[in-house]
């Protein structure tokens, strides 16, 4: 049985932990709102771009299609772009993403493909390195900026496109969480390069004039589309991180509360026991006289 003093210290330390988790929860809740607003604000651009893409991609197909759309003809070397957070304290979010990535990698390897990883964010590094040590192509550090934005997405996209042009890989997949709610963030695997051909849009029937030409526009559009996809992933991870963090910290705060209650009961019981023993000692001492 722990002594009274030990119990008291223990309660104090759990209480201060609870304070920290509670603060982190509130911070996450505030940041979540911001991250969600950012994700929503980015939607119009992605939607419009997708619309333009689908109307163009259906026109430019076959031999004339740019490499980013048609691929380089091979399907051997796959690159998994895994987007993780930079900070912890967000429950199972990162391990879920890593699990999805590893699952996908195993699947591809079972098909006889070569797999390598391109990691964004700090938290995915260690667990993926443990399993696929020699297959990590690159880390992209997002921890130097507070809110990874379009610039980071553009840098990643440029990097990937350069690697692709250099034939370092044939197909790239993007692994990131989709923010559903503060409780649910589903890991998603999506093909990034070659850009999957969107379903043909509803043609309005009017003839659209292109300047310079359809192919030139498409050529400019595709890198932009990749950037937008990555930007979307960065926004999703930001929202997911805060959402998961909020939920995890809420749980932690509640657990700490339960622990404090249990320890307080234990403390009171031992205190009472100590008093009873003392009384018994005094009474039996008095009776002996």
């Amino acid at each position, binding site marked *: 049985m722990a002594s009274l003093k030990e119990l008291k210290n223990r309660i104090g330390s759990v209480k201060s932990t609870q304070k920290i988790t509670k603060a982190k929860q509130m911070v996450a809740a505030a940041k979540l709102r911001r991250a969600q607003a950012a994700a929503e604000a980015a939607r119009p651009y992605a939607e419009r*771009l997708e619309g333009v893409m689908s109307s163009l991609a259906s026109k430019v197909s076959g031999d004339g299609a740019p490499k980013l759309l048609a691929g380089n003809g091979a399907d051997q070397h796959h690159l998994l772009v895994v987007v993780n957070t930079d900070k912890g304290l967000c429950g199972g979010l990162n391990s879920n993403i890593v699990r999805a990535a590893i699952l996908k990698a195993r699947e591809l390897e079972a098909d006889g493909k070569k797999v390598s990883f391109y990691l964004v964010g700090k938290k995915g590094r260690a667990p993926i390195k443990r399993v696929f040590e020699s297959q990590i192509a690159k880390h992209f550090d997002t921890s130097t900026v507070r809110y990874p934005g379009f610039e980071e997405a553009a840098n990643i996209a440029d990097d990937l496109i350069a690697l692709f042009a250099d034939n370092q890989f044939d197909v790239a997949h993007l692994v990131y969480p989709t923010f559903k709610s503060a409780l649910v963030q589903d890991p998603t695997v999506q093909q990034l390069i070659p850009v999957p051909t969107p379903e043909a849009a509803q043609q309005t029937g009017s003839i659209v*004039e292109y300047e310079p030409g359809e192919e030139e*526009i498409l050529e400019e559009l595709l890198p*932009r589309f990749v950037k937008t996809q990555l930007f979307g992933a960065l926004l999703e991870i930001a929202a997911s991180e805060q959402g998961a963090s909020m939920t995890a910290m809420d749980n932690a705060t509640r657990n700490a509360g339960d622990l404090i209650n249990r320890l307080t009961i234990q403390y009171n019981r031992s205190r009472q026991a100590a008093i009873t023993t003392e009384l018994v000692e005094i009474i039996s001492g008095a009776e002996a006289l």
Partner: protein
Amino acid sequence: MALHFELVTPEKLVRSEDVYMVQVPGSEGDFGVLEGHAPFMSTISNGTVSVFSTQGAAPVEIAIEGGFAEVNDKGLTILAERVND
């Protein structure tokens, strides 16, 4: 008698309003868009978009970087990489 004009960047929808005319710095030369313009799509270079809210009004100038412009029956949409306010 108005052209619906939207300016969108990856971060947000910058402008969505009805205007008289917009001048866009196309990569093959500037062009102006009025209401009822034929469907048209062009890449744009870095430059200034001039928005005329009414005929003869002084233009509001917005500096943009890269992207493209699309004109369809709903109006003009500019997807710019960045807007310098």
